[in-house]
């Protein structure tokens, strides 16, 4: 059976797109061929910077003849209907078959589709593939209209068998398919004619093109580790970089170069970042000292001087890059070790806007400092140290190094903080307070870092909420979802109990104070007996610098409606600034929504979380998660699931009775009115459960509490099986309803079970 070889030869394809492009080429072509009836035995795909290659083995030479049977009208149907059917099938009346069916004689048509030669099908499929290729980014060139990742130069498309190779007739936007390609751009640029895949791969190998990216990566890694090993060094592993570099060359040649002595004192992260980001160099480390001492670069060719010129060039470029980095490092060190230290940088942040409605970076830092100070005792940190850490955590934004390498923010801060003589806890907080940056990023665990990391995120949520920049749909320009998830993970993973509402209150007060101090709030509406009155409704309308004083009757009305915040006019308005309920619940429900996503990934249903959110104290996220986990585990057991049914039944009967009778049954169930054993058993079981649940709840041991509830399942089921709640005797009825109310109370300790689905 014949083989198919396709090569799409273009200008340099970005390394990061090559793998996916190879997969897409294979998928689109093979799907297209198979859909058209052209099956094949094997498929292999290869990519280089300049080509996507697909080789199919044992492909059908033509699609098989297809016979389609079509059911028509009844044999005695009107002439018109039969004519229409014939026209659709392209047949005449005598070619139809009459078949007896339970519904009478029906006409059937057999439509034969002849097979099509492979070349015809391949041409169609490949053209469609090229025209609809899913590049992440594509472009036009010259005066043409075709889109490709970079200009497409040639299409090689041949079908070959023992008899020889045949070019598939195909032209896409002026590019006609042929049986030629080209070798390495510099080492073997001439045209090469090929007759099949093996011939193609062999000729390319002779023309200095290693077709298989895996084999290029292997060569690079093998040669790199060898040359490093020979020098007593080791290559710093970096799979992403390896794949990228393998996509930058057709003929890899590994060269190891030196890093100038002057630069070896730079932090290793600076060396690595600079070499990797700018130069795509691997770092080479001294295994004894852990220092990065050399680099490995991968050239795309051999040269007569064995790479001497190339290596010298690369060393020179690196020298220039690193002398820039060293310039920044030296300048920065001079600043932090001088008088003023990192404060100089914080001061400079007074001129840098964080957001035009939320003030400067320096104001942000003030708020973070206040909040960190307040949060510190709750997370086991020293309040003053946390405040100091918050004050310097963002100082490195003024540093020259971070200006040049923004990805080093925080990390540089911690280097500089140590050089400035600050404590390790403070230095670490600079590095850690941005964390977690992604769902798989570690959360900070050191108390001071936790305080500052929480402060950073809570202030962000409060601030952007206050100026009404909430995320909408897919838009979340200030990464508030990430901030909320960060707060959740820091608290839950460190098992910290903090009231979210108190934290929001502190953050909100800090925000309003900061807005007032900066004259961005226009909320002074007047004063009563020397106490200033501030309007709650407008305090975050920030653009209008004017003070909106109102007349006395307006003030009186506003006080009545709760729109007024009292302050005593001193510098600290904080203690009197109330967190508006609506604001608090809006932020909290946003956090709760993120929590649902977070817990859903851990297999906890959203209705379980809703049931727990409905409980008091659900602004303590750690507590909330404990409730949800306990409930979720219980629901997975047979007892748990049935308990919920029993609870719901009890609750429904009770609610209906309460509505009908207009009273609340909540007290006074007495075993002496119990008539049946099931009833008595339930009394006993409830007493027992209560004894177990009450201390468990006090210890926030929700699992034990839920286990205690689950034990009620049997008695509750038995009760409902044998006892008629709405007894004729009103005393017995009332007693039974009060008994149900005990079930409701006990079962509602951990979560509001009425919120559960099903």
């Amino acid at each position, binding site marked *: 059976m014949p083989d198919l070889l396709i090569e799409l030869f273009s200008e340099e394809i970005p390394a990061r797109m090559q793998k996916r492009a190879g997969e897409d080429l294979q998928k689109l072509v093979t799907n297209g061929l198979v859909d058209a009836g052209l099956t094949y035995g094997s498929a292999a795909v290869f990519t280089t910077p300049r080509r996507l290659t697909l080789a199919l083995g044992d492909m059908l030479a033509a699609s098989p003849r297809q016979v389609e049977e079509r059911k028509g009208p009844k044999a005695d149907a009107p002439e018109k209907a039969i004519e229409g059917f014939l026209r659709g099938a392209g047949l005449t009346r005598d070619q139809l078959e009459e078949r007896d069916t339970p519904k009478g004689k029906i006409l059937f048509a057999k439509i034969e589709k002849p097979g099509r030669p492979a070349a015809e099908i391949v041409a169609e499929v490949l053209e469609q593939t090229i025209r609809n290729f899913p590049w992440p980014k594509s472009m*036009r060139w010259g005066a043409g209209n075709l889109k490709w990742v970079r200009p497409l130069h040639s299409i090689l498309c041949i079908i070959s068998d023992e008899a020889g190779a045949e070019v598939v007739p195909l032209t896409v936007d002026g590019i006609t398919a042929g049986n030629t390609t080209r070798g390495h751009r510099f080492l073997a640029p001439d045209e090469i004619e090929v007759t099949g895949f093996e011939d193609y791969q062999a000729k390319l190998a002779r023309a200095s093109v290693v077709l298989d990216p895996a084999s290029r990566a292997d060569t690079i890694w093998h040669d790199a580790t060898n040359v490093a090993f020979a020098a007593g060094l080791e290559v710093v592993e970096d799979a992403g970089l390896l794949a990228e570099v393998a996509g930058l060359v057709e003929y890899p040649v590994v060269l190891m170069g030196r890093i100038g002595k002057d630069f070896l004192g730079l932090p290793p992260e600076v060396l690595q970042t600079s070499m990797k980001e700018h130069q795509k160099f691997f770092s080479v480390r001294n295994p004894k000292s852990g220092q990065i001492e050399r680099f490995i670069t991968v050239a795309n060719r051999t040269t007569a001087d064995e790479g001497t010129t190339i290596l010298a060039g690369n060393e020179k470029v690196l020298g220039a890059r690193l002398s820039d980095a060293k310039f920044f490092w030296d300048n920065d060190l001079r600043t932090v070790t001088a008088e003023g230290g990192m404060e100089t940088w914080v001061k400079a942040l007074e001129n840098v806007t964080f957001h035009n409605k939320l003030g400067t970076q320096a104001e942000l830092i003030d708020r973070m400092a206040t909040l960190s100070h307040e949060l510190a005792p709750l997370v086991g940190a020293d309040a003053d140290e946390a405040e100091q850490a918050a004050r310097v955590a963002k100082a490195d934004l003024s540093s020259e190094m971070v200006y040049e390498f923004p990805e080093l923010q925080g990390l540089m801060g911690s280097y500089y903080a140590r050089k400035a003589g600050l404590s390790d806890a403070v230095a670490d907080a600079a590095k850690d307070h941005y964390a977690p940056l992604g769902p798989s990023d570690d959360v900070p665990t050191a108390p001071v870092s936790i305080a500052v990391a929480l402060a950073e995120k809570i202030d962000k949520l409060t601030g952007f909420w206050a100026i009404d920049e909430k995320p909408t749909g897919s838009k979340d320009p200030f990464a508030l979802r990430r901030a909320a998830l960060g707060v959740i993970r820091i608290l839950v993973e460190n098992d910290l109990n903090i009231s979210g509402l108190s934290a929001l209150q502190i953050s909100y007060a800090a925000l309003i104070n900061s807005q007032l101090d900066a004259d961005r709030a226009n909320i002074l509406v007047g004063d009563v007996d020397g106490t200033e009155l501030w309007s709650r409704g407008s305090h975050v309308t920030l653009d209008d610098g004017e003070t909106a004083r109102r007349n006395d009757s307006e003030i009186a009305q506003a006080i009545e409606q709760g729109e007024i915040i009292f302050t005593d006019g001193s510098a600290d308005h904080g203690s009197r600034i109330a967190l508006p309920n609506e604001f608090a619940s809006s932020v909290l429900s946003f956090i709760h929504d993120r929590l649902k996503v977070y817990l859903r990934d851990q297999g906890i249903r959203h209705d379980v979380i809703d049931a727990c959110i409905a409980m008091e104290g659900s602004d303590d996220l750690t507590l909330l998660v404990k409730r949800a986990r306990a409930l979720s585990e219980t629901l997975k057991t047979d007892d748990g699931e049935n308990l919920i049914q029993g609870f719901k039944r009890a609750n429904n009967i009770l609610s209906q009775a309460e509505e009908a009778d207009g009273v609340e049954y909540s007290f006074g169930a007495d075993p002496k009115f119990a008539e049946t054993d099931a009833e008595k058993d339930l009394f006993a079981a409830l007493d027992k459960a209560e004894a177990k649940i009450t201390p468990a709840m006090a210890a926030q041991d929700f699992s034990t509490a839920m286990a205690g509830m689950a034990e009620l399942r049997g008695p509750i089921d038995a009760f409902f099986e044998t006892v008629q709640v709405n007894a004729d005797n009103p005393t017995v009825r009332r007693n039974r309803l009060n008994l149900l109310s005990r079930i409701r109370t006990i079962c509602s300790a951990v979560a509001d079970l009425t919120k559960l689905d099903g």
Partner: protein
Amino acid sequence: MSDAAQKPRSFQEIILALQGYWARQGCAVLQPYDMEVGAGTFHPATTLRSLGSQPWAAAYVQPSRRPTDGRYGENPNRLQHYYQYQVLIKPSPPNLQELYLGSLEAIGIDMALHDIRFVEDDWESPTLGAWGLGWEVWCDGMEVSQFTYFQQVGGHDCHPVSGELTYGLERLAMYVLGVDHVMDMPFNSPDAPIPLTYGDVFKQTEEEFARWNFDTANTDVLLDQFNEAETHCKFILEQPAEDPKTGKRIVMAHPAYDQCIKASHIFNLLDARGVISVTERQAYIGRVRALAKQCADAFVQTRAGGWTPEQDSAT
């Protein structure tokens, strides 16, 4: 005439070699634009001429300013004022990569000894509302050029597509000449009666401008100038197409674009002064982009931009 190059010995020889090479490839060799710009792309010969259907081929040197890159003339290869060599050909010819490699040979880079690479680098100019796909070209790990196929400029799709080449002249020349510090690079022939280095020409100005850019430029004045340029640009574009004096149709795309260039440069200065935050940056860039878009809209209403009288009568 052969492109086989003699090894150049000075900065200016490299510039002359490029001028000669691209002249031989049929480009109109233009002169620098007489305004402060951040890059050769800002020259109207690129920005505006990449729009519309008219074919175009131009090459020129463009002095460029990047205030934040100033290092008082001390850094071996960072300058706040430097030269770019810019080539723009529309439509992009199919052998543009080969033409480009030819230009490297023309300035004395031996293709047999060096490692030339085309590394993904999509170009986007948020201030010009422009983007394109292409590469940075590496010679032994050194970025020596930008190579871009323009897809959109000033919010307009480019059709046909222009191929743009930008060479950072100092860096490229240092490489070719084997100089380690830009200030040591021979500017004219080392055998000239008065041999001058790059430092002789530019050390003084780099120091002065670094101080000015970073610490002295009056930000209040600059903020005013930014606003003035913006207002002025809009004012120019608001004028009717028909000139009341001559009665001719004169759409003033270029004068308006001058104001856009001005605003862009002032923004760069403000940025160097460190008074623009990340969030504000976006707003400023957006304002310059709005101007660039309006200028592009105006340019396609000119004859050079492909406008024909029939277009008007058709509407």
